C-alpha cells in the first residue's frame, strides 16, 4: 500500500485525472443539487454562494494538483531506476494537465450565474 503512495508508481499515471474526475463530479452534482434545493436570486448574477463554493473547490483542487505535479518532478529527478523516473515524469505531466483542466473547466464560475 505504501508503495502506491510513491510518486514513481504507475498508479499515479491515473492519479491526477482521478482527482480531476472527483472534482468534476463533485462540482456538477453539487451545482445540480444546490440549484434544486436552494436556487439563488437570479438578480445576484454570478455573485452567489454556489459560485463561491465551486470557485473555492476549483482553486483548492488546482493547488493540490500543481503540488503533486511538482512533487512528481522531484521524485523523477531523485529516482535511481530508469523506469521509476519515466513513470514519475509522465505522472507529472498528467498532474499538470489535470491542474490546467481543473482551472479551465472551473473558470466559468466568475462569469456565469449558477442556475439559469
Amino acid at each position, binding site marked *: 500500500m505504501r508503495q502506491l503512495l510513491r510518486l514513481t508508481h*504507475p498508479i499515479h*499515471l*491515473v492519479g491526477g*485525472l*482521478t482527482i*480531476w*474526475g472527483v472534482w*468534476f463530479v463533485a*462540482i*456538477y*452534482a453539487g*451545482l*445540480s*443539487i444546490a*440549484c*434544486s*434545493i436552494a436556487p439563488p436570486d437570479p438578480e445576484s448574477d454570478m455573485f452567489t454562494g454556489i*459560485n463561491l463554493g*465551486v470557485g473555492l473547490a476549483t482553486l483548492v483542487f488546482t493547488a493540490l494538483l500543481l503540488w503533486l505535479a511538482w512533487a512528481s518532478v522531484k521524485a523523477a529527478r531523485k529516482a535511481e531506476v530508469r*523506469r521509476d523516473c*519515466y*513513470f514519475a*515524469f*509522465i505522472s507529472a*505531466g*498528467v498532474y499538470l*494537465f489535470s491542474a490546467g*483542466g481543473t482551472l*479551465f*473547466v*472551473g*473558470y*466559468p*464560475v466568475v462569469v*456565469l*450565474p*449558477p*442556475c*439559469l
Partner: protein
Amino acid sequence: MSDTKDATLTPEVRQLHKGLDEVWGNPKGLRALTVVNHTTIGLRFMVTGAIFFLIGGLLAMLIRTQLAFPDNDFMSPEIYNQVFTMHGTVMMFLFAIPILEGLAIYMIPKMIGARDLVCPRLTAFGYFCYLFGGIILASSMILEIAPASGWFMYTPLSSGEYSPGPGSDFWLLGITFVEISALSAGVELVVSILRTRTQGMALHKMPLFAWYILAMALMIVVGFPPLILGSILLELERAAGMPFFEVAGGGDPVLWAHLFWLFGHPEVYIIFLPGAGIVSTLIPVFAGRPIVGYGWVVAAIIIMGFVSFGLWVHHMFTLGIPQLALAFFSAASMLVAIPTAIQIFVWLSTLWLGRPRMSLPMLWIIGFLVIFVLGGLTGVMLALVPFNWQVHDTHFVVAHMHYVLVGGMLFPLMAGLYYWLPQVSGRMPSERLGKWSFWLIFLGFNVTFLVMHWTGLLGMRRRVFTYDTAMGWDIYNLISSVGGFMMSAGVALLILDIALHFRFGRKAPQNPWGADTLEWAMPKPPTAYNFVSLPKVETRHPLWEQPELSRTIYEGRHGLNTIHHGRRETWGSDALTGKLRETIHLPTNSWWPLFASLALAVVCISLLVRVYWLAAVVALVAVVLLLRWSWENGVHPNVDPEASREPSDPPLHYHTMNGPGVWCMSVSHLANGSLYLSLLFGWFYLWTVAPQWQMPETSPLSMPLLVGAGAALTLGTLLLRKLVNGLRRGEGAGLGLSMYGAGGLGTLQTLLIIAVMWLAELSPTENAHDATLFVALCYVLILSSLGAVLCILQGLRVGYGYVSVELPMEPVVVVRLWYYNLVVYWSLFVAIWVMPTLLGGGA
C-alpha cells in the same frame, strides 16, 4: 516459417512443434464450435463484424437513395425510421466495437509474446453472445419490426406509449446481450495485457498498440454498464410498467439521456483509441524510426480515456441544463482536443524525422490524418454551446460524426487490415486494386460528408425522411448520395482485392514491412500457439534490435519450450516490471461457452415474445451451465489430467494467490461498480430532479432486517478474510468448514433481503421510488446469492481436493466478491434507508 527452416530443425524441436500442434490445434467439423483459441475467435469476430458492416452500409445506401431527391417515396416514413435507426445501431454496436475487439483479441497476445488470452473460454463465450445478439437484432429488420427511435433510443419516443411494437425491445435486449460480449472482452484484454506479457516486457516497454487497447478495454469495462442499466430499466418500464422514465410516475425521461450518453460519449473514444493505436504502430514502421515521444503518447491516451467520461452532457446542450453546467462540459469538451493534438503532432514529427515509404497501408493513414483532423475541428466547433444550439440535430452533426468515426476508425482499420493481412494469410495484397479502392472510398466519403456540412448549416434536420424542393437542399443531397455510391464501389473493390489475394497474392516474406513488433516473429499464417518458445524481450523494438528472434523462437531456444505435460501454457508476468511470476495454465476447447450463450439467447428471445416463465427457467439453466463451467477449473481432471499439484518454478498459477483469476475478478468489479454507481446516480437524480418524485415520510424497508442482512454479510466477509490470511501463512485447517460457514451466512443474508422485499409491499409499477428500490434490492439479492453459492461450491471443491493450502487461489477470488458486496450493501443502505430517513419525505 519456410520449409528450409523446417529442414534445419533437430528431431527434438520437430517433436516440440508436433506436440504443440496436438495440444493447441483446432478441431474440425462440428467440434470447431468448441474452439477457444484467440486467433480463431479474433478472426470470427472480425469476419462477423465485416458482415454487419456490409449490412449497415446497405442501410446507408437505402438512406441516401431516399434522400437523393426531394419528395421521394422510395421508402415510407415508418420504414425509413427503422432503416436509419438500424444503420446507426448496426454500425456502432455490431460493427465498430466488435471488429476492433476482434482485432485486439487476435493481435494482443501476438504483440506481447503470449500464446493466448488469459481466459480463452470467455473469449469464445463473448463471441457467441455477440453473434446471437446480432442475429436477434438483425432479424427484426427482416420481420419489419425493427427499432425506429434512433440509435440512441431517447425516451419517451422509445417508451411503450410512443413505440408500442416490439422494435424497442429488440434493441434493448439485443444490445444488452451483445454488450456481455464487449464486457467479457474488455475484462480479459485488461488482464492479459497487464499479466501475460512475455518475460522482461516492462509496462513502459510494451508496444503502444497494447497501451491503446488497455485504455480501450478499461473504458469498455467502465463505460458500458450505464447503458446496460439504462436498457434494463427501460425494458422493465416497457414490459412491467415500472415508470423510471415517465414523469407522471415520478420518473424522468432525461435520466435515459444521461445514462445513454454516459456510455455514448466514451464509446466514441473506445472506437477511436484502437484506430489511433493502429496509426501509432504503423507510422514508425513506414517512417523507419521509433515513434517520437512514446511517453507523450502514453500520457495522451490516459488523458483521453479519462476526459472522455466528462463530456457526455455536450450531447444534451439543448435539454435545458443551466448555463454554468453547460460551460463546464463545453470547457471539458475543448480539453480533449489537447491529447488528440499531442498524438497528431507525434505522428507528424515521426514522419518528418523518418523516411516515409508510401505503401498501401500508409495511404490509408494519410487519409485518416486528413479526415480525422477535419472531424476534430468541427468537434471543437460543436463544443461551443451557442454554435451547438444552432446546428443541433442537423446534418452538420451527422457530417461531423462521420468525419470523426470513419476518419478515426474505418481508415486506420483499413490501414491495419492491409498491414496485417500478410500476417493472417501469408500473402501480399494487390497495390493497384488497393489504391483504386482507397481513392474511391476517400473521394466518395468526402463528396458525401463534406457537402453534408452545408446541408446541415442550411437547416436540414437529421431524421426527416424527405424534404420539399423549396428548401434548397436538392443539389447537396444529390451530391451526397452520389458520393455514397462512390464509396460503396470502393468497398466492393476492397472486398474483391482481399478475396483475390488469398488465391493470387504473392507470398509474403517473413517481415514484409520491416516491422519491429513480435507478431512478425511467428510463422505465417500463425500457428494456434503463436510462439514455439517465449522470448525474453527488454526493448520496445524487438525485431529491429534482434532480427534473429523469429528464427530462435521457431527453433525453441526460449522459454516454455516443453509440451510433454500436455497443458496449454503461457507466462504470467509482473504487471509493472514484466518479471516472471508464474506459468499460467490455460483451459482448452470446450462446449460450455456455446451452451451458456445459447441458453442466454433463449432467455433473450423468451423475453422478446414475453413468455416470462420460460425466460425464468432458462435463465436458471444458464446460471447452472455457467457454474458447471466454473467447476472445470484449476486441477479439475478435465482441465489438468496430470493433476499438477507438485511445486514448480515458476509455479503454476493456481499454486499462487495472485493468479489471473484474482485480477479478472477485480477488473470485473470495475464493471460491476460502474453499474452500481449508475444505479445510485439514477436514484439521486430522480430524487432531486424528477418533478413528480414522491419520497414517503418513512421508509417502507425494515431497518432491523436490513441491518441483520448486513451483519450476516459482514461476518461472512470477516470469516473469509481470516481464512485467506490463514492460507497466506500456509494454514488450511477447517478450510472447507469455513467455506460452508461463509456460504451459510451468505444464504442468511439472501433470505433476509427477500424478507425485506416481501414485507416492504413495494408498488414498483406505480411509482419510480418503489421501482428503483425494487431494482436496487434485486441487485444486492443477486450479489448475495452469488456470494453464497460460490462459497458452498468452494466448500465442495475443498472436499474434492481442488482447493487447499497448496492450491489457494480460488478463495482469494471469492473473497474479493465478498469485499465488493460489503461496500455495495452498506453504501446502498445509507442511500436508500439512512438518507431518506434523515432527510424525510419532504426532501
